């Protein structure tokens, strides 16, 4: 893992002090709410439905046990509504529930005292009062954490494949490049007020596990015939109201030109991206509108950066070596803890099959702890669990863990011989459901329970589907399925890339859901990145689990064998049988088409 230098440590401390200063000036009335808004977003603080939401950066998902312990402390000591606020929030949610008789699902009660792992490998808290924000950011800075640019119209947290550095199909470990790019993008003076958010993803292996086609800039590492490292650069992918897959603008960009080229792209975007309409402000719109002209503009700007500016951000070999020196294999030590696990038992073998992955190093494994279980929202980890995760990371994984894009947590340095003991420990924490990659390993945003942007709640849907599909035999029979749900078109739940997508929409003040089929994130299982297609008019919450069940029934009926995956059956037979099944599952309410 990257280790902060004195400069890095001081930088996040000063950033926390700057934010404290801004908050104090706001509290004194020297900054209006409107003036504070972009400033607090650039430190990760949203005002949400009932309380602020703090989004803490976990750069490319890597987190240390020390940092996990700090997240646990924040969850325990700060993620707490007053009793009055909680009562008010719960009452409001209950009223929302009562206003939709027969249309909605049982809603889990609101929780607090936990962190939430996001699809962008950040960690969110939903209840920290704004009066504690400065204190919390200072605490985080003490363990080299921050919320720098996790929100706002700036360059956001940079993501990678969770398996960088340990993947068997690795071409290049891109973490060093992600870290160098993160530093370059932090408090960039020219690019802090872009037309809209800007997201960059790296993928260093043959398989695209970082969904690079869905990013504003997607960077696929490769080596040319001379063995030199470079990146295929895709620009203009994105979700939201108009899902678009990125297009290749450079087949091979030499690694040392990475920052110069990104600078060119972002400068063109900053200059020409639309600012008149929030829904048309991402770079994907500019790329689609301008086509070849966009590429020409970027290449011209890049040429000027190199020839006229002297290419000042050419990454030196010395800097690459310095940063890469942190991403070597850590000191590995087996835990050698005893265990009573029956290694022939079906549950254990299923866990090995689903949650444990091969590794670049012989004798080592990558183990994903599943945060998808009955009674908990996807990706939620309470304070006790966060502390326990820190202990697991120390005991089993050289002090390191990784948040994944699917809202789970992965331990990257596990000895094969330690698997039984780790399984027992994970099981005791409720984190050993053998469902990684299966239906119940769903992605869900926090949705309308917390987020003021949401049109509908996602957590009751996630809970209902999780509860309905508790039978592991059934879940295994259904096989790998990407089920993604978002509470609104901002798509934080990545519904566009789900084999099955669920999108919350608002109609007449009630919660309705569009269901989509056939999306893909670009992985081997899913195929080339593409957005899903709507199956029909929206459904009520109560109908959604039946719709899912009906479509899965169609899959079972039409598949060539259990070995044919859901997404392959869907592609082979087409959407019509699935649409028929979905629409046939309506409860008899008049279903009106959405505009």
């Amino acid at each position, binding site marked *: 893992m990257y*280790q*902060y*230098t*004195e*400069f890095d440590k*001081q*930088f996040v401390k*000063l950033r926390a*002090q*700057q934010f404290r*200063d*801004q908050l104090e*000036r706001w509290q004194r009335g*020297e*900054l209006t709410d409107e*003036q504070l808004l*972009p*400033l607090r977003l650039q430190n990760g603080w949203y005002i949400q439905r009932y309380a602020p939401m703090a989004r803490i950066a976990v750069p490319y998902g890597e987190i240390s046990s020390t940092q996990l312990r700090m997240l646990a402390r924040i969850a325990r000591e700060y993620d707490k509504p007053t009793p009055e606020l909680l009562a008010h929030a719960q009452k409001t949610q209950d009223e929302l529930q009562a206003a939709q008789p027969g249309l909605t699902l049982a809603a889990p009660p609101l929780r607090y005292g936990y962190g939430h792992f996001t699809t962008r490998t950040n960690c969110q808290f939903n209840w920290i009062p704004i009066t504690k924000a400065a204190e919390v950011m200072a605490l985080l800075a003490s363990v080299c954490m921050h919320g720098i640019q996790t929100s706002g*119209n700036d360059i956001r947290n940079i993501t990678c494949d969770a398996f960088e550095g340990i993947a068997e199909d690795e071409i290049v470990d891109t973490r060093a490049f992600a870290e*160098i790019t993160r*530093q*370059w*993008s*932090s*408090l*960039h*003076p*020219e*690019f*802090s*007020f*872009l037309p809209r958010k800007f997201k960059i993803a790296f993928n260093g292996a043959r398989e695209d596990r970082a969904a690079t086609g869905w990013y504003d800039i997607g960077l696929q590492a490769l080596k040319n015939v001379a063995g030199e490292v470079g990146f295929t650069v895709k620009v203009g992918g994105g979700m939201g109201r108009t899902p678009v897959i990125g297009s290749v603008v450079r087949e091979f960009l030499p690694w040392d030109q990475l*920052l110069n080229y990104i600078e060119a792209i972002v*400068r063109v975007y*900053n*200059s020409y991206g639309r*600012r008149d309409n929030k829904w048309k402000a991402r770079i994907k719109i500019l790329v689609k509108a301008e086509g070849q002209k966009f590429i020409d503009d970027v290449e011209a700007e890049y040429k*000027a950066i190199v020839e*006229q*500016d*002297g290419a*000042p*951000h050419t*990454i*030196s070999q*010395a*800097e690459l*070596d*310095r940063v890469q*020196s*942190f991403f*070597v294999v850590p000191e590995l030590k087996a835990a050698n803890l005893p265990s009573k696990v029956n290694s022939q038992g079906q549950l254990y073998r299923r866990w090995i099959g689903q949650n444990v992955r091969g590794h670049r190093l012989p004798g080592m494994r990558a183990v994903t702890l599943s945060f998808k279980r009955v009674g908990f929202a996807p990706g939620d980890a309470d304070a006790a669990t966060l502390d326990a995760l820190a202990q697991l990371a120390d005991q089993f994984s050289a002090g390191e863990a990784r948040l994944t894009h699917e809202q789970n947590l992965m331990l990257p340095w596990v000895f094969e011989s330690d698997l039984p003991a780790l399984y027992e420990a994970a099981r005791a924490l409720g984190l050993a459901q053998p469902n990684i990659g299966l239906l119940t390993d769903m992605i869900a945003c926090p949705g309308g329970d917390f987020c003021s942007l949401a049109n509908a709640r996602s957590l009751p849907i996630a809970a209902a589907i999780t509860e309905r599909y508790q039978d592991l035999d059934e879940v295994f029979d259904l096989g790998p399925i990407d089920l993604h749900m978002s509470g609104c078109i901002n798509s934080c739940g990545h519904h566009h890339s789900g084999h099955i997508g669920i999108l919350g929409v608002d109609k007449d003040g009630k919660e309705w859901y569009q269901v989509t089929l056939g999306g893909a994130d670009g992985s081997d299982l899913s195929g080339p990145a593409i957005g899903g297609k709507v199956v029909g008019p929206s459904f009520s919450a109560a109908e959604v689990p039946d719709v899912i069940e009906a479509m899965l029934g169609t899959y079972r009926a039409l598949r060539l064998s259990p070995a044919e995956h859901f997404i392959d059956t869907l592609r082979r037979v087409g959407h019509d049988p699935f649409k028929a099944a979905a629409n046939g599952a309506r409860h008899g309410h008049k279903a009106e088409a959405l505009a």
Partner: protein
Amino acid sequence: MKIIAANAVPEPANDEKVLKIANDADIADIARGGALEGVTRIELQFPKFTDGRAYSQAVLLRRRYKFSGDLRAIGDVLIDLLVHMQRSGFTSAVLAEGVSPDAAERQFARYAAFYQGDVLQPRPHFARDATNETASEAA
């Protein structure tokens, strides 16, 4: 960097040649047309402080077109932006109405250095400091 309160903007002197550029104007076109010649001050616009186009205009004017006169920020200028502006090449700024210059100085005093190069210091941090720590040195 010269910070000017909204109600204290001095009149231009007789020998000053001031050019105002809209924030959606193309700097290359303007330069090509010869409009930069003899200009002693360029004023760039921040219609809302969240509209950051003028930062790129400033960078281009300084780096590509070697403009060496006063580069002034006008519009919705808040003190929290002044450091970004200075680093992008602005040498003066007129604060928005009602914004007090009191808290401005300490914004400049906060960060000793930044990661990326800018107009004032073109080299990024990693290229400036010969004694960057490696893994063995970072405690």
